[in-house]
């Protein structure tokens, strides 16, 4: 029998009458991969600001928008990677500190925009552990984003909202992965294929008992 809490969760939020018409809402950093992901998911694409100074105002504005049952967040890494000893302060800020701030604010918007009983999925660029040398800032950002997802799963679970992450190395795979070779020849995969499919999986009602998880859609490169 369906619980009262679940029925309440499915009934939608106070702003349910103003839901978006797209199948999902995608809050994203501006990159070809996120636009491709939006197309693959038939999602409304909403850009997060590049500047940190604009984040607070953006969160306030976007949080007031219509709710949606399915919200996806993708903040792809934007800067070239490299060894830490060759990473100056400016590069460090751009590769580590700025992206974590963008993730925190974008997930704050996602919480506000996701309807009761809905689902949020974060698409996180993460270097596979075997291939992460030279990606220390990116690995830090990825683990931070996954922790933010778990924190949000805890805080939003009471209203029936599930929050999960898909981790991918599609944008952070080295040109020559070290041995052993990835399990699937399709490594590292793409946003529009492997990532989009995994996002659909976690957004679906079939995943109604899954929350706080980080699922690697990296063609068997990490487990």
């Amino acid at each position: 029998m369906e619980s009262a809490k679940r029925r309440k969760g499915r009934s939608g939020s106070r702003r349910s009458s103003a839901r978006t018409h797209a199948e999902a809402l995608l809050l994203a950093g501006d990159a070809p991969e996120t636009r491709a992901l939006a197309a693959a998911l038939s999602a409304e694409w909403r850009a997060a600001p590049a500047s940190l100074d604009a984040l607070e105002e953006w969160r306030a504005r976007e949080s007031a928008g219509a709710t949606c049952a399915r919200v996806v967040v993708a903040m792809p890494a934007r800067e070239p990677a490299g060894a830490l000893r060759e990473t100056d302060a400016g590069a460090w800020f751009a590769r580590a500190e700025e992206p974590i701030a963008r993730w925190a604010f974008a997930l704050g918007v996602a919480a506000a925009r996701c309807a009761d009983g809905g689902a949020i999925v974060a698409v996180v660029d993460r270097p596979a552990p075997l291939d992460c040398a030279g990606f220390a800032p990116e690995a830090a950002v990825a683990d931070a984003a996954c922790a933010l997802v778990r924190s949000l799963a805890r805080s939003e679970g009471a209203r029936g909202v599930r929050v999960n992450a898909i981790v991918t190395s599609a944008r952070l795979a080295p040109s020559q992965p070290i041995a052993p070779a990835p399990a699937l020849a399709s490594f590292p995969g793409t946003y529009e294929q492997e990532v989009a499919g995994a996002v659909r999986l976690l957004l679906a009602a079939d995943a109604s008992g899954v929350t706080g998880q980080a699922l690697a859609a990296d063609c068997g490169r990490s487990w």
Partner: protein
Amino acid sequence: MTAAPRVALVTGASGGVGRGIALACAAAGWRVWIAARRAQEGEGVAREVDAAGGAGRFVACDVADADSVAAAIAAVLARDRRLDALAHNATSGLSPKPTSLREVSLGELQDHIAVSLRGAYLLARAAHSPLRSARGAYLLLTSEAGFEGKARLPIYAAVKAAQRGFARALAREWGADGIRVNCLAPLASTPAMERAFALDPAMQARVLGRLPLGALGDPIAEVGPAARFLLSDDARFVTGHTLMADGGSCPVT
């Protein structure tokens, strides 16, 4: 017990877990630099290191500031000529303050990042050369929050998780230089934990209620030795790892 005395620097060592690490290293006869912003408290811990069998030194250090970090490492090398072990324990003063992702300010967020993560980066940059010369060890103090997230402390959880990712990657990057990089996730009775309990009264029952060993760890007797192990040659084949020293609290490893 480690045989050879080592030179260690511990950030945020003017109290709590950092002090516990410093005194555990002192018990093994190490020379321990107390790197902290609070001079009076830091110098007091340096004297405790002397009394515990080591050699204590204090150096003022703001881990979020590149010049301050570089000066602290330079002070170590000027006096002791080497650095074998580096432990980054300092965290933002905002760590126990509850917040949410819908309301956290950019300023609060940046303070967390600056101390925990920028500090990790600045220390790594400044200490790489002496740690390579010593084939030494770099230890980052993370938290179970970084594994499982926290509904009311999401930014704290995020920066603690970020340290794990950073350490995992740096361990692979620095392995060829003979430098080990690890994390320790303690759960200890500290002034910071007491402040967190005061800010969230229900937290104490939540924390203590799931501890198989029944009580918070003692920073000197129970957490410090675990840190000393990872910083010592006894752990010479351990890198890229996070060791839980939490009394079995965290259900995720």
